[in-house]
């Protein structure tokens, strides 16, 4: 498991750094615009109407962004938790904890892919 994780480390770190970017920068703006902007009337409700959002989410670029917004932060969180565990002295169980963290991120990503696919009917 350790060797496999070592081999996959570049891709995992790539997903992690993508996740931190999305989770730290894009998602708060997304929540601000959609969650609060719509509710407080700062953003036109029509602009966030079902048909428009449906069209955006099923556009190839929209689908990719949606997938990135759901899947990448999972990898960000998983990698953070694994390294937190190591920093707390859990190196001996790194294989198990790593497999668990990345396993959850992988399952979550697959669910996200499935969810985005289903949007396309």
């Amino acid at each position, binding site marked *: 498991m350790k060797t496999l994780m*070592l081999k996959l*480390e570049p*891709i995992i770190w790539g997903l992690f750094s993508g996740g931190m970017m999305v989770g730290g920068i894009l998602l708060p703006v997304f929540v601000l615009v959609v969650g609060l902007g719509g509710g407080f009337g700062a953003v036109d409700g029509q602009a966030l109407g079902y048909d428009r959002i449906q069209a955006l989410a099923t556009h190839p670029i929209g689908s990719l962004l949606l997938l990135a917004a759901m899947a990448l932060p999972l990898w960000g969180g998983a990698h953070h938790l694994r*390294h937190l565990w190591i*920093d707390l002295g859990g*190196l001996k169980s790194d294989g198990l904890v790593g497999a668990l963290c990345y396993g959850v991120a992988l399952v979550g990503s697959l669910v996200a892919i499935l969810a985005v696919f289903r949007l396309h009917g």
Partner: protein
Amino acid sequence: MSQETKTFVVTRFDPDKDEVPKTQSYEIPVEGDWKILDALNYIKDEVDPTLSHRWSCRMAVCGSCGMNVNGEPKLTCKDPVSNYGDTVEVAPLSNFPVVRDLVVELEGFMEKFKAVKPWIVVAKERAVEEGTTRQSPDELADFKQFSMCINCMLCYAACPVVSNEPDFIGPAALALGHRYNQDTRDEGAPERNEIFRDEGGVFSCSFANECSEVCPKKVNPAGAIQQAKLRNVLDWAASFVVKRGGKES
């Protein structure tokens, strides 16, 4: 001018006599412009000649006098006594075996340095007739900051990963390896990146950033390691498209 006194609680360890390190207190007069190293030298010269500590240049160049002062890794020749209260604790750097008192073992650290090939690697040496290798100020700026390291090892004492993973190459050595990877005269990046991606390489770093916080020369090893991670992700991705080892310009 009234003379101020401070108490220095210094860690002592004699491998021939002691099972574990103990502390010894010295109350000494201090001058206002003293650094911690001046106080240690005073103790050694005037109070207790048996105290062992390592130092040389007294001007933050040689990197010999790194110690934990009140629990934080400091270059003692640069650390003013006026920054501290009446009691100052001085201990050897964390994460290193102690040889005696405040002196730590450097062997393992030196091995880690060698591992990253901290020299210019070229396939073929340039002949003198070919003239000098030119480098623009921008190209120099890509690595200059990372070449300012004085090997004081404060970053190793501060790094949580070094304390947990003995095999971790560590901040200073990884930053130095990255410094050569960034150098336009160098062709050794593929070799170094193999080491960077291996166990104890750049991906072991959890970016606590403590190394850059304590660095007395503002080398920013954490920044170097993050750059090296990104470069290795791109290098790894490129290895699927371009033959391994042939993608470095």
